[in-house]
């Protein structure tokens, strides 16, 4: 039984990928005992003991490296933790920094390098897109209202106003653009990005790079129905040859290691790169459901085994997310609050 810790077990309206990863691991051939890493005692995954065997509260990554490492070593001591699969952007830099130390303590992972992780910054998309032969929507980085006005005069409305790493709002007027500029700058800092809106199909591809230019499988999808937060609720598999080639070129060009997701807009034959996520997306169970168990393959890679690489899948498989209810004892919540674990 491999003890694997997985974070992102916050299956809420903006769900983390953790439970999808765990479902995949449980359906794989490698026997696992999943341990949930949570940042809040209310994260639903804590209470789903048919998926998550044990759950631990983690210190916020912003508290620094020492408390984070100590907590993981504590879990190692108590549970015999062997592998960790981090699934949240905010914790990834810490896990990447700690990867070799954790490995020395017997906690394996399979993560992008620091340099690969930096590629997700939106001001790096241009160079990535150019290198893999696709486009990006015209994007201008601005740090003041004057620069914002200049950028707006070059683009036509609507425009996207984006933070360097997070958040994207669509502005239809200069007043709206200004308001979003201030709110994104206050929350995520400078520069703020002003981006042309490209009309087309929003498509996504998920995969796991082997770190040597190859990969352990890809899956391309289109989101058919999204929530008000832009999160997938219904989706369908697609076999967009240009998109899949772009993903393979991406993995090859950067020798990508670990999970990734590319968000792309397809306009006829043209592809526009919109976002790179250096981790599994929350809909990762879709890949498992069509027979490409990427979480299990990543686990195998972390364990130093050679994962499967086949990734034939049919177009037209449907993904349906749904809500569910659970009634349980207050005791579980009590343990999480008082002991930080259950």
């Amino acid at each position, binding site marked *: 039984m491999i003890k694997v810790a997985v974070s992102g077990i916050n299956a809420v309206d903006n769900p983390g990928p953790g439970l999808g990863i765990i479902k995949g691991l449980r359906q794989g051939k490698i026997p696992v005992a999943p341990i949930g890493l949570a940042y809040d005692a209310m994260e639903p995954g804590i209470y789903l003991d048919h998926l998550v065997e044990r759950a631990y509260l983690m210190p916020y990554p912003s508290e620094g490296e020492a408390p984070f490492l100590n907590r993981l070593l504590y879990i190692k001591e108590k549970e015999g933790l062997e592998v960790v699969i981090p699934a949240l952007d905010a914790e990834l830099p810490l896990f990447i920094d700690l990867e070799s130390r954790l490995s020395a303590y017997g906690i394996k992972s399979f993560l992008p390098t620091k340099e690969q992780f930096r590629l997700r910054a939106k001001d790096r998309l241009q160079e990535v897109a150019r290198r893999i032969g696709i486009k990006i929507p015209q994007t201008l980085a601005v740090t003041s209202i004057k620069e914002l006005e200049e950028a707006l005069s070059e683009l036509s409305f609507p425009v996207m106003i984006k933070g360097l790493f997070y958040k994207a709002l669509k502005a239809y007027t200069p007043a709206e653009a200004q308001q979003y500029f201030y709110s994104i700058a206050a929350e995520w800092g400078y520069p703020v990005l002003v981006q042309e809106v490209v009309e087309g*199909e929003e*498509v996504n591809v998920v995969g796991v790079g082997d770190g040597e230019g190859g990969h352990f499988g890809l899956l391309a*999808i*289109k989101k*058919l129905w999204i929530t008000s937060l832009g999160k997938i609720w219904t*989706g*369908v*598999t*697609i*076999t*967009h*040859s240009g998109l899949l080639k772009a993903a393979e070129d991406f993995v090859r060009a950067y020798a990508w290691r670990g999970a990734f997701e590319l968000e792309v807009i*397809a306009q*006829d034959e043209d592809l526009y790169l919109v976002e790179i996520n250096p981790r599994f997306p929350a809909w990762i169970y879709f890949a498992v459901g069509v027979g490409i168990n990427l979480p299990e393959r990543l686990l195998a890679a972390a364990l130093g085994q050679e994962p499967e690489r086949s990734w034939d899948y049919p*177009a*037209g498989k449907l993904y349906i997310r749904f809500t569910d209810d659970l009634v349980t004892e207050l005791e579980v919540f009590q343990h999480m609050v008082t002991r930080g674990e259950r």
Partner: protein
Amino acid sequence: MKLNRLAISEEGFIFDPETGNSYTVNETGLKVLKALRAGQSPSEIAEALSEEFEISVPEALRDVEEFLESLKRFRLWEES
């Protein structure tokens, strides 16, 4: 041709495996799509429709062209 990649069901449900988009067509639309895929020209299709539905060839051709306009709008058809 983009039409060749479409999955077309006998019920008139059309799925584009590249974009993930789906469409529905009626019985006549289904006939036209299949004929286009078989390489028939719009005027050949109009002639067949005019015989089947007992309408004039120009009238049938107008309907076929209107249908082609819709396909163009969905970027499924390009004039060769």
